[in-house]
């Protein structure tokens, strides 16, 4: 029984990890880690600013969606 519950919990966590990563929930955390790793000493921008910059980038670099 406990094994089934544990397996279900694991599956639940995996689905959650996948959907949240796919949609982009962790993108800001990744960006912060990226700044820390490659540009130590510089402060990362705030989460709101990060998304503003990303959307501004998308404004000028549109990606196609297929039919």
């Amino acid at each position, binding site marked *: 029984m406990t094994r089934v519950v544990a397996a279900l919990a694991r599956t639940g966590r995996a689905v959650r990890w996948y959907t949240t990563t796919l*949609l982009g*929930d962790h993108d800001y955390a990744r960006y912060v880690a990226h700044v820390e790793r490659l540009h130590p000493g510089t402060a990362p921008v705030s989460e*709101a600013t990060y*998304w*503003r910059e990303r*959307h501004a980038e*998308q*404004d000028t670099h549109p*990606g196609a969606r*297929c039919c």
Partner: protein
Amino acid sequence: MVARTTEPIRTDPDLPPVAVVENGPMPASRRAVFVVVAVIGAVAWSVLALARGETVNAVWFVFAAVCTYVIGYRFYSRLVEAKIAHPRNDRATPAELHDNAKDFMPTDRRVLFGHHFAAIAGAGPLVGPVLAAQMGYLPGTVWIIVGCVLGGAVQDYLVLTLSVRRRGRSLGQMARDELGRFGGVAALVAVFVIMIIIIAVLALVVVNALAASPWGVFSLAMTIPIALFMGVYLRFLRPGRVSEVTVIGVVLLLLAIVAGGWVAETSWGQDWFSLSPVALAWCLAAYGFAASVLPVWLLLAPRDYLSTFMKVGVIVLLAVGILLARPEVQAPAVSSFARNGDGPVFAGALFPFLFITIACGALSGFHSLIASGTTPKLLEKESQARPIGYGAMLTESFVAVMALVTAVIIDQHLYFAMNAPAGATGGTAATAADYVNGLGLGGTPITPGEIERAASAVGEDSIVSRTGGAPTLAFGMSQVLSTVFGGTGLAAFWYHFAIMFEALFILTTVDAGTRVARFMLSDSLGNLGGPMRRFRDPSWRTGAWTCSVVVVVLWGAILLMGVTDPLGGINTLFPLFGIANQLLAAIALTVVTVVVVKKQLYRWVWIPAVPLVWDLVVTMTASYQKIFSSEPRIGYWAQHRAFQDARDAGEQTFGVATSPAQMDAVIRNTAIQGTLSIVFAVLVLVVVVVGAVVMVRSVRAGGLPTTEEPDEPSRMFAPRGMIPTAAEREVQALWDEHARERAGTAARS
């Protein structure tokens, strides 16, 4: 027997290995699994191909498809990898080299698979197979599965591989680099015109699905305020909480579908949301323009989240539904329309028209625009191009097989009542019943009452001549899903659920496509130099607005033409859509073949060349027939002349045209369609001929340099495929330990 060898590859003595090379024969247990898969696949194919007279269960389609994909992926894609792609995981990918945590960023292979799949899959693989079902289930199934394994998936995979070695450059740029300036310009123009026609025809599918359906129009209209709300929420209330807002959006979306049923019952709902096809076409054009000039965060980005979530969800739902409902197939294996080429859904014989009707799902040129440009900038390791490029296309092919299943499990009389143009069915249940009973479909004839009951079961006033594929797919899906979940009481909900998500996919293509085309136009204008250079600045509003207007007018005009076409829009325009898409594939495969020849891989050049030659034969035959056929049903110009002659003879009605104005419309439309066919074919021939010249030059010179970027050693590790091997898990453990040590040192210092 040779034993398996594993060899870790290091690029830096201070770092753990960045890759593992494993060689040797497959373990016996694994071989046994593939033998079993092959046998099940062979049995499934025999059932599909040899069943005559007895009914076939839809589950056999799933078995035939999945087993073929497993074998194709394990053996054919590995051959392509070993002989052409030559991935090297000690080489840094553009994502690793240019990592900026934005467009370049090493992304987990499973997540990237999801992104790539959401970007390539849309309404195309859902619509084409439904229309192709008029030829019976067998030809479509064979082409979707075999075409994908040997053609479509190879194209996606190799274009991705090329682009990864070229800093993620787009197909247009790669064409210019590899084919020279002239070929490059022809490719760029072709991509632009092809994009316009694809947007127009997809928009036409939406219009046909929603015309005179207040329920559908209400639900789809609600997606716009929902997206705006999501955009504002993410920008100002809770930035970065993407999955949270997506869940809210999906709940609102489901509510909008349910509410649509209530609204369609009220008199004001019917007044407001029963839109004519022409009105809907204008709404779509206005929407496309707005999406092109509004900031991405407000409309496009949130709509994309919804669409991604729905895509994966709906496809899983449909697969589960088919497996649980296990419906019986109603269509014949090969219909008489396949042999005689006189079907009402689209004109022409099986060869070549089946292959251009099922474009996406088997071989889709549009994918090469995503496999170059977006996905390669996110790839962690070169070898992951195989699971992502080849694997995602197999998944899309599977979606197409399921779409075909939903069309062939519907009563065949109903199928043709829904898909024959209004000019043939007369638009009412009574005339439609007469018409389809006269088609010689066999089985029990249908009564007008049965057609009306089928319509009211899904909450619509009429389902006669709802062409374009989307309503038929929704009807079949509602049939499958209501048997499994909720019974007949939910049939209307599932129908509108399916209409809604198809429309949502198409709107995503329409808005993103308009935007991409706008940028292509402004870049090209800017490249002309002089005062035009200003167009290159995307923040120049006048330029953005002008280019958006031009793009929307171009596709909007074709859309309006299709909507008002007396011959029934879809059956005249869909072939152009298919030809355009397949011609784009020809351009992509030409670029791939040129690179393979330049690298002197002559022995394996057939891998991209076979799909290229097949694709050229299909599209050039189809284009030839569309341009030169003397039969008005097939040839645009023959139709044009027939109506012109009737008009000159002073006739007031001709064929399905009931007035001189309608005759003029046919004369004008066929001229435009005929001209477009010529333009497409000529542009692609130019690209292919330039490609052939470059190949000959390369063979004479003993190989030519390609524009591959120089090697940079990788400094990170990721598994080769989707599932890490035992050796790769060990290396991953070394990296985890390395990261802990570094964190420990950093904390002490």
